[in-house]
């Protein structure tokens, strides 16, 4: 049904389609609003389809290698190159395919939403250009198999997202947030570039698989690891490098915030890829694993305690995003800590990793949904201040339903998806260290408490006089939220289906470093 050509070139097309659409978007806006909507929506639709095609191919046939400038994947290592993969390589294993699907689905729903929510604003051509560039950056980061290429996509992502955070200048604070975010991102990117230089100096290679194969774990490699972990933990908003997150998340337009969540998941993916595939068991896994666990627990606790006193609904959600990132770090950190210990890994390590990875998907879905509902409320009410809202449940019923779904999912209440992944994390982490599991549960309860507060102050109570004329948001915005809400409910109802078919292969692919190296260096499984 799908032409072989498309399947074969899907890794490259995934990046090319949004990149080309990004630069056509301003011109299509000169024709009409509808033309731009068709172009932007169509480009994202095609990208999502490609992601699904590629993912199903990867899940069926194993790791896909795409070599730029060569006819076949077998030429990843040219015969006359002395065993060095000189060309730029995209390597998509199950883990990468999972991230591609998450990124594509949530960006599709976000773009459908923003077609309505940004309609009344100016400068839309530039908005969509930056938006699509951000998508390009995310997709490139998760599919590349080359450290320098990773840096380039990371910078595309940083520049586009900094531009978008400052997009509605709003009297200055948005630019402040963007400066904070961008200076930190740039410093992080330079740290990564230094690490790349160290790898090149030591191993004469930029290809992740080859570096992994030649990895000696010298002092310089430890320095490079520290640089990578610090930069990527900062980009994904883990405590103690989290302080840009609430500012950037709360000042960006809501549709952009939902995409920023996906961007932090991509950084998280980068972190896992470096720690597992580049270093794997050669590093002192227990030590680095514990470091990741401590980052995770700190993020969970600090995030949720900072969220409770917030008055601005988007700032509150941003702190919750930090807190939820902690769960992913905790789950995957436990998996990493027992990576060298086969019986423990079989007993609970894989399950902890699956829980962490499953939480990444769930988080991208429900957090995106929550930010979109916050945007919907702002669209009608014009404020993010919880104290000035109230009684909106009477007029914005659908938004309320979507908010409830998102809030229950983030708090880990069955039957929504957050419950499924959190349960996996609780169980497996309990086997590793009961205290960590208890902390995770307490954080969940605090999350629920603060969302009950938010729900009450936004939707409950009598209709306020100033919001008497408030109506439900336009259909495309509801559709964007609806896609995510459907996924949230579906994943919550059939978690085992998702875990068995999608998440477990990804966790195994991440833990199995040898397979990744062999797949890339031999040109695909």
């Amino acid at each position, binding site marked *: 049904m799908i032409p072989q050509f498309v399947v074969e070139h899907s890794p490259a097309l995934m990046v090319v389609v949004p990149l080309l659409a990004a630069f056509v978007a301003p011109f299509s806006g000169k024709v009409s609003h509808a033309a731009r909507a068709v172009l932007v929506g169509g480009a994202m639709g095609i990208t999502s389809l490609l992601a699904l095609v590629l993912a199903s191919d990867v899940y069926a046939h194993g790791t896909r290698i795409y070599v730029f400038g060569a006819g076949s994947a077998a030429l990843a290592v040219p015969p006359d190159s002395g065993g060095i993969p000189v060309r730029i390589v995209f390597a998509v294993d199950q883990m990468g395919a999972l991230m591609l699907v998450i990124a594509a689905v949530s960006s599709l729903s976000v773009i459908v939403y923003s077609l309505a929510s940004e309609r009344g604003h100016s400068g839309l051509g530039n908005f969509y250009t930056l938006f699509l560039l951000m998508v390009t950056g995310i997709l490139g980061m998760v599919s590349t198999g080359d450290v320098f290429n990773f840096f380039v996509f990371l910078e595309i992502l940083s520049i586009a997202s900094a531009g978008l955070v*400052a997009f509605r200048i709003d009297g200055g604070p948005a*630019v402040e947030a963007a400066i904070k975010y*961008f*200076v930190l991102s*740039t410093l992080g990117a*330079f740290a990564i570039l*230094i690490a790349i230089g160290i790898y*090149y100096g030591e191993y004469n290679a930029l290809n992740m698989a080859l570096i992994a194969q030649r990895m000696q774990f010298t002092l310089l490699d430890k320095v490079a690891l520290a640089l990578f972990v610090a930069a990527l933990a900062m980009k994904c908003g883990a405590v103690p490098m989290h302080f840009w997150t609430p500012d950037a998340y709360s000042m960006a337009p809501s549709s952009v915030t939902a995409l920023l969540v996906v961007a932090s998941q991509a950084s998280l993916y980068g972190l896992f890829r470096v720690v597992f595939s580049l270093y794997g068991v050669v590093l002192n896994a227990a030590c680095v694993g514990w470091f990741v666990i401590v980052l995770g627990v700190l993020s969970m606790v600090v995030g949720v305690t900072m969220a409770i006193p917030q008055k601005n609904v988007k700032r509150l959600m941003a702190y919750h995003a930090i807190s939820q990132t902690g769960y992913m770090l905790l789950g995957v950190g436990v998996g990493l800590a027992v990576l060298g210990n086969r019986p423990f890994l079989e007993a609970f390590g894989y399950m902890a990793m699956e829980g962490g990875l499953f939480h990444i998907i769930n988080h991208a879905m429900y957090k995106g949904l929550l930010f979109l509902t916050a945007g919907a409320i702002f669209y009608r009410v014009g404020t993010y201040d919880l104290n000035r809202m109230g009684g909106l449940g009477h007029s914005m019923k659908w938004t309320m339903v979507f908010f409830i779904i998102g809030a229950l999912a983030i708090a880990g209440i069955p039957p929504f998806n957050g419950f499924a992944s959190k349960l996996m994390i609780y169980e497996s982490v309990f086997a590793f260290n009961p205290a960590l599991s208890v902390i995770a549960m307490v954080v969940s309860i605090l999350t629920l408490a603060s969302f009950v507060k938010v729900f009450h102050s936004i939707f409950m109570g009598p209709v306020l006089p100033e919001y008497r004329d408030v109506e439900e948001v336009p259909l495309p915005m509801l559709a964007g939220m609806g896609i995510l809400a459907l996924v949230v409910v579906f994943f919550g109802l059939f978690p085992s289906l998702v875990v068995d078919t999608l998440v477990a292969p990804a966790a195994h692919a991440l833990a199995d470093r040898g397979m990744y190296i062999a797949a890339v260096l031999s040109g695909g499984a």
Partner: protein
Amino acid sequence: MIGSLPYVAIVALLLIGLATIVLKQNLIKVFLGLVIVESAVNLFLVSLGYREGGIAPIYTNAPEGTMVLPTPQALTLTSIVIGVATTALLLSFAVIVWRKYGSIETGFMRRLRG
């Protein structure tokens, strides 16, 4: 001959850049600190690929002898291009801050609260 002199320079530049970012109040100076850090990283990449007495890595009519490694130079070129984009965006932020706040001292940028 020059030994590890470039690396000393790199570390010095990195420290100067970081100190500028942390200590200075003026936004333009903070951004200049970032540019200095960037130059340090670029210098690091170039010096990695340098070979004592090497010639430019162009194969046409190349004389006998060692060549300087071409890949780090390509990386540096890419990094410079990205750096220009970064600096341009940061400076345009500074312009907006100047227009909205009437100052580019970070001490005045305290409107973001919550």
